């Protein structure tokens, strides 16, 4: 069985999830090739142990994202019976579109992969897990940070191919930058504020804590909907982002089921809420019944002490 991994780019270089895709597929055997759309990260991909071939597909169509143009451009080079991507927004679209074009079934956002092939994934926003049997050939997208990455030290051959592909989606204007700030879906620690923060300006206290520990700042939907200053890109939950950091800190968030849907799979959860009955305490590993006004300064101080140890 041959595996074709379509690499993920992040910040003009290879996203770390690509090595995790190699790690995931090496457990089920087969020759692994990596396709780098737009050529981004091809030299880094060649250094992942276990990769036998890197195909750097380059052309004007990769200047901005057009799902179908990208898929049509890379389609001729997909020669394998297991196609894999990350389960980022773009990764899901690419795996679904490629699968449909090749008449493969696709299963998205898998968190385990076994011989056979059987995969598991979370459904109903984490309220249940399903196990699915898939026949080859197929396409799979993989949730980041659930598989061990393959190691470095590889030395695969890189083939560069120039393609010309018509695009039909044209970017006219950048409206708001995702910002230099760390994205909640990427971060290893997330600190989120809810309506209990009282005012959007109070999020500055969360940013102070975030800076101490390299965390991203998130928000509940109530905070996003109430305050213009809090963009939807920060929203965690059913209609926001799903996050699985090693530590999630919820401040002034009640813990509505739709919020839990986006963060309950975090490894550890710390909740700070003044209401001892708040449902967020039901999922928290550590719960502190207190106002944010009293606790956030202390949290910053003690984290800073621990970090400088």
């Amino acid at each position, binding site marked *: 069985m041959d595996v074709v991994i379509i690499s993920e780019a992040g910040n003009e270089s290879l996203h770390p999830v690509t090595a995790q895709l190699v790690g995931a597929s090496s457990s089920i055997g087969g020759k692994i090739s990596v396709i780098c759309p737009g050529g981004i990260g091809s030299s880094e991909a060649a250094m992942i142990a276990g990769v036998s071939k890197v195909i750097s597909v380059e052309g004007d169509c990769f200047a*901005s*994202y*057009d*799902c*179908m143009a990208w898929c049509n451009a890379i389609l001729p080079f997909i020669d394998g019976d297991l196609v894999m991507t990350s389960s980022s*927004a*773009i990764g*899901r*679209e690419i795996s*679904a*579109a*490629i*699968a*449909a074009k090749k008449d493969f*079934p*696709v*299963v*998205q*956002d898998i968190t385990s992969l076994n011989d056979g092939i*059987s995969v598991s994934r979370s*459904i*109903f926003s984490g*309220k*249940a*897990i399903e*196990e699915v049997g*898939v026949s080859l050939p197929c396409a799979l997208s993989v949730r980041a940070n659930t598989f061990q990455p393959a190691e470095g030290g590889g030395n695969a051959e890189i083939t560069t191919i120039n393609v010309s592909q018509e695009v*039909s*989606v044209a*970017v*006219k*204007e*950048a409206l*708001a930058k*995702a910002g230099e700030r760390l994205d909640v879906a990427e971060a290893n*620690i997330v600190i989120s504020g809810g309506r209990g923060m009282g005012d959007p300006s109070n999020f500055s206290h969360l940013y102070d804590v975030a800076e101490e*520990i390299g965390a991203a700042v998130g928000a509940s939907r109530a905070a996003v909907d109430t305050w213009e200053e809090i963009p*939807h890109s920060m*929203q965690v939950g*059913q*209609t926001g982002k799903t996050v699985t950091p090693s*530590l999630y800190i919820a401040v002034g968030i009640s813990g509505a089921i739709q919020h839990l849907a986006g963060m*309950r799979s975090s*490894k*550890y959860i*710390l909740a700070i809420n003044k209401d*001892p009955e708040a449902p967020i*305490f039901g*999922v928290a*590993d*550590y*719960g502190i*019944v*207190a106002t944010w006004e009293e*606790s956030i300064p*202390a*949290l910053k101080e*003690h*984290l800073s002490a*621990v970090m400088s140890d």
Partner: protein
Amino acid sequence: MGVAVLLKQVPDTTAKISVSGSRVDESAITKWSISPYDEYALESAIALKESGADELVAITCGPQRASKCLTEAAAVGADRLIHIVTDADFMDSCTVQSILSSAIERSECDIVLCGKQAADTNSGSTGPGVASLLGYSCVGSVTEVSMDGGKLSATRLGATGLERIEVSGPCLLTFDKGEVELRRPNVRGIMMAKKKPIESIGVEDLGIEIGSPRASLQSHSSPPDKPPGQKFEGAGSIEVVVGKLRDEANVI
């Protein structure tokens, strides 16, 4: 130019999901709703109709109860309702996408809107897959769309932030939650919708044969229980908790 919107009926986001005998117990689910991202697609589809699209066709695929989605869509402005009726409890992506794309072909719409992923399966395969089968362009994570002559202009959440894009030719857009407010139906809309006929179509009427599935459900299970958490009173406990984050959880 017709606009089709794909709607999926899913358990309401507040529904408790329980597993019995390695399957999610559907009979325990009391409230079913249009999947949240599909609601944003529906809202934008109505906006397109208001700005001059010819016809708004709402399409769903699912068991009998799913027709409620269509009636709800009619109450806010859908003109034509198509229900592909199936009782299958699990369909692989190939089957779902071929059903929906042949229903869209039948509707003769060249603009298709749907949610970026469904709230039950959390997959996100349908939009891009259907676009591929139809040979349409695909734009994901759209928050707003408008029609400008023959061109669609949309705002999408791209990898580097919000951007405005233009797309030409037949296309499928998948929707995210944006700043757009969802409208509620008025009484007149609700009354009219009750009378609106629904075209019920069987999968075989679309000329689709459900062969042996290439992805099949083996089991459902409940997520592993977390051990009960530790609770502390007052901000004075912060120092202790930070110590535990370091020594017990090893996360800082």
